[in-house]
């Protein structure tokens, strides 16, 4: 059972602004989808390992060597920053009220 409050809570957790008018729609949709996936409870998975990756490989590592980013790619990525100071990415403060 998914409630309106659940939708608002999930939206908060997922950092999503959801319009008041859309809440009921999401509630109906998620309720239907979760109702469908609940059939998985019937399936016996006792003793079956969890499948994490399709090819079964684990802990793939590479040589610890620095690879220099080409200048034009670096410039393009910096150019995509919404806000910047020089070549530095500028972000909003994490804490709203500073007490020093």
């Amino acid at each position: 059972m998914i409630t309106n409050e659940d939708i608002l809570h999930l939206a908060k957790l997922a950092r999503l602004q959801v319009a008041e008018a859309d809440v009921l729609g999401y509630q109906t949709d998620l309720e239907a989808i979760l109702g469908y996936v609940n059939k998985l409870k019937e399936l016996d998975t006792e003793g079956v390992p969890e499948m994490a990756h399709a090819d079964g490989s684990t802990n793939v590592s590479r040589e610890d060597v620095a690879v220099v980013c080409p200048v034009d790619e670096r410039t393009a990525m910096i150019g995509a920053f919404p806000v910047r100071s020089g070549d530095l990415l500028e972000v909003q403060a994490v804490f709203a009220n500073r007490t020093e």
Partner: protein
Amino acid sequence: MNPSELTILEAAKLMREKKLTAYDLVSSCLERIEADNGEINALVSVSKTALDEAKAIDARRSSGEDLPMLAGIPLAIKDNIMVKGWMASAGSRILENHTAAYDATVVAQLRAQGAIFIGRANMDEFAMGSSSESCHFGVVRNPVDRERVPGGSSGGSAAAVAAGFALGALGSDTGGSVRQPASLCGVTGLKPTYGRVSRYGLIALASSLDQIGPLAKTAADVAVILSAIEGNDPKDATSSGPYETYLPEIDTEPSVEGVRIGIPKEYFLDGMDERVKASVMYAVRQLEKKGAKIVEVSLPTTEYALAVYYLVMPAEASSNLARFDGMRYGLSAGGATLQETYERTRGEGFGAEAKRRIMLGTYVLSKGYYDAYYRKALKARERIRLDFEDAFKVCDVIASPTSPTVAWKIGEKFGDPLTMYLSDIYTISANLAGIPAISVPCGTADGLPVGLQLMGKPFDEKTLLRVACTQQKT
């Protein structure tokens, strides 16, 4: 014949024999785009440099250079695959003005072959969809019947090939997004084995399921594109290889003599579309006549596959899409606080289906639900993989429909997400198990294309493509 109607193999041969120039080939595709893309909307942008690139290829060929098969061949690239200097929006408002800073590995590989990127293919937002109706850049129409959907999420890629805008295309396939639109548009599409093709430069939906795959008119053309884009890539730790490659230009008389084709009983149930079933079984019988052996197999966990998929995929999607925070690239809707900036950016940037899946993924990963949903799904996923492992002990490929229905009318399923999800019922298992699968056209029902899906053993694309090529020679 209009050059845009050629297959890649035909066009490459004509260009090698100097009977066709890349310039004329690209011009022919551009004419088709000019005439039809306004309505079909398969491409969200068209290359301005394609003709110059074609001239350069022709000059190299004239100077006596021996060029690769794909040199001068126009290809469409799905909007979630990076082409340096092009927009890469993944069909989303949140990346509407995002320019790719680098080439995806597959794009660099195709570029090295001299392929010509003709345009960005339209898609469902972040590859979430089965109809190409959830596109920020507008609905894609099926070239076979413009009142109908082309399938999705690589609907633009499939429609571009079907409409002659390109001779081939790249799509991405997380739960059927290459195969299902290929089926609905009457073209061929392959999802390679997980890890065969690098995902570097693909905007991620669900990382344990995503694979880039080729679409083209024929399985032989698909094989040519695959041979160019496959291989281990240090930039994608989940990629592996090299593996044995299928080369249709060498295997000119493909045979299925002795190949065992499995028919999964769980895929052919009462109530399924009889016209789809009849087309698929006719194709299977043709293969039998050519020497294949038909065997019944069982994939007992099939009925749970869609449930597993709609837990694993949203869980991974909610995590992958967390990167769109308005801080580093893409849309940034300013807010008074950091939290407000996140919420406004994501609220304005993501469409309804993306939000639905992000919330679903957040739910199944949250405390108290993780074991019941996500962990349970990973165990069930292993059972699905084991089903295939068992089935492949008695057969070499598995045949089924690609889609339970032919292309439906635009708008018909759009308001009902669960019904839409059910259209992926035959394709998702291959992604969950990580195995390769291809959709090849196998006739029509009421004038609309039907697709035969063939699934293969991990990394055995060679057998899969050989069977598909034989089927297309019938």
